[in-house]
């Protein structure tokens, strides 16, 4: 079963400590286990672009800029046996400590 891991910042989490960021170890581990499909960091909101089509007109804007201190900092798609395995994989990601992880099951479009 595929899950999208939204790796998000969280103002209530402990402050980020680069010394304890073991993301390389995490990636090696999930790849060795064969549960990692793909994933990356995401560039900050400053580099985001919003695309909308309104009444047939294309609207392209910089942003979105929100007041929120919580944003998505990265993503990983993992393929796990079930939610328990996905929780275990997510719990070992360094951002589970320094931020939070939201697990969303993929909802396959049966075409």
């Amino acid at each position, binding site marked *: 079963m595929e899950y999208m891991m939204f790796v998000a910042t969280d103002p209530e989490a402990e402050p980020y400590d680069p010394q304890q960021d073991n993301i390389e170890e995490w990636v090696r581990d999930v790849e060795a286990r064969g549960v990692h499909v793909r994933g990356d960091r995401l560039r900050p909101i400053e580099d985001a672009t919003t695309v909308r089509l309104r009444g047939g007109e294309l609207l392209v804007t910089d942003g979105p800029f929100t007041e929120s201190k919580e944003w998505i900092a990265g993503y990983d798609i993992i393929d796990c046996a079930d939610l328990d395995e996905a929780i275990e994989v997510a719990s070992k990601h360094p951002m589970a400590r320094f931020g939070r992880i939201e697990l969303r099951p993929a*909802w396959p479009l049966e075409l």
Partner: protein
Amino acid sequence: MAPGALTEPEEADVARADVSRAIAAAYEFEWGRIVSTLIRITGDWSLAEDCAQDAIELAIGRWTREGIPRNPGAWLTTVAKNRALDRRRRAVNEAAKLREVAIMHELESWGTEPADEDIQDDRLRLIFTCCHPALTMEARVALTLRTVAGLTTAEIARAFLVPEKTMAQRLLRSKRKIRNAGIPYRVPPARLLADRLCGVLAVLYLLFTEGYSASSGERLVRDGLASEAIRVARALVQLMPDEPEARGLLALMLLQHSRRDARVGAGGELLTLEEQDRSLWDRSAIAEGVAVLELAHVGGEGGVYQLQAAIAACHATAAAQDATDYGRIASLYHRLATSHPSPIFTFNYAIARGMSAGAAVGLEEVNLVAESKALDGYYLVPAAQADFLRRLGRTEEAAERYREALSLVSSGPEGRYLERRLREVSADS
């Protein structure tokens, strides 16, 4: 009047009573087995519940007319299984056919007397899945009542004072989440087991205290909740005999539940331990609770439920309130507060100290809890201060605290108790 006209209705009544007993037994022993096995085979929670419910409903009519079958469990299993086969046959479409063939095959080979191990595994799977931490606490409680205990949606809705439609939606949402989020239908592996078992016990205890505290809602329905919690805990102990805390929880529930008939006075007011008529305590529940607790200690001591059960046992086995070993109770609460820090345990330690070392010491300890503000807004803190002040003869201060407690309490029996005490101290001063 035709001969026999007087006896026939009686016979019918006897038959009806037999049938209700058989149906009650079916809920006790067959419901969980049927539902949990159907879920394992089909993965379809609603189908499992519907088929088990259909079987029970069919049994009520058929057994009344034709008599109770020799093996009611096998009868119910066969009906539920045939219902499930019918439903799956109707639902099948081309795309799902291969998977369906496998399910149909397994359904057809589901015997009416499967090996004990299979049943136990299925029932445990069901309990652990209903109590999965990815579900909200509300959902866990509702699912456990519906699928493990076999209560109807209407009954659960009444117990939690929500409209039936709301409860139906809550159950539907939970079952959907189990399927869509990939919550596994299994007993967790060893590395997760301790944690998850804690979660299951917490759900059962919440279910029990909802019934026991009767903070709102119909009393009868809520007593039923406490009994259901005991029933599921009993099943859990049977399924996991080596888990001391499962036994600890069962013992705790039995001991607390033994006082159910003595807790409320004639006017519906809540009675304190010292005011309760101890002859109304359920002796057999107490004996069972104490025995279960002793067995629990064999597997290891010091768990949070075992310690609480040990405290409940001190109360339950005391011949009179003034014969209660409050020194031991205080030391048990001290262990609890140290190993599982919680302001409630500290507060109860303070009360027990007051009961063993005198009202002055108790008042001092409770004042410390009040000053810590950890239990701000909890009516029992000013109520305890009031009781100790009353015992010390400081009636005016006591009245003030009773009034403060009254301003914090919402429901009937607790409020009536406080009002009665307030009248007493007001008359004295």
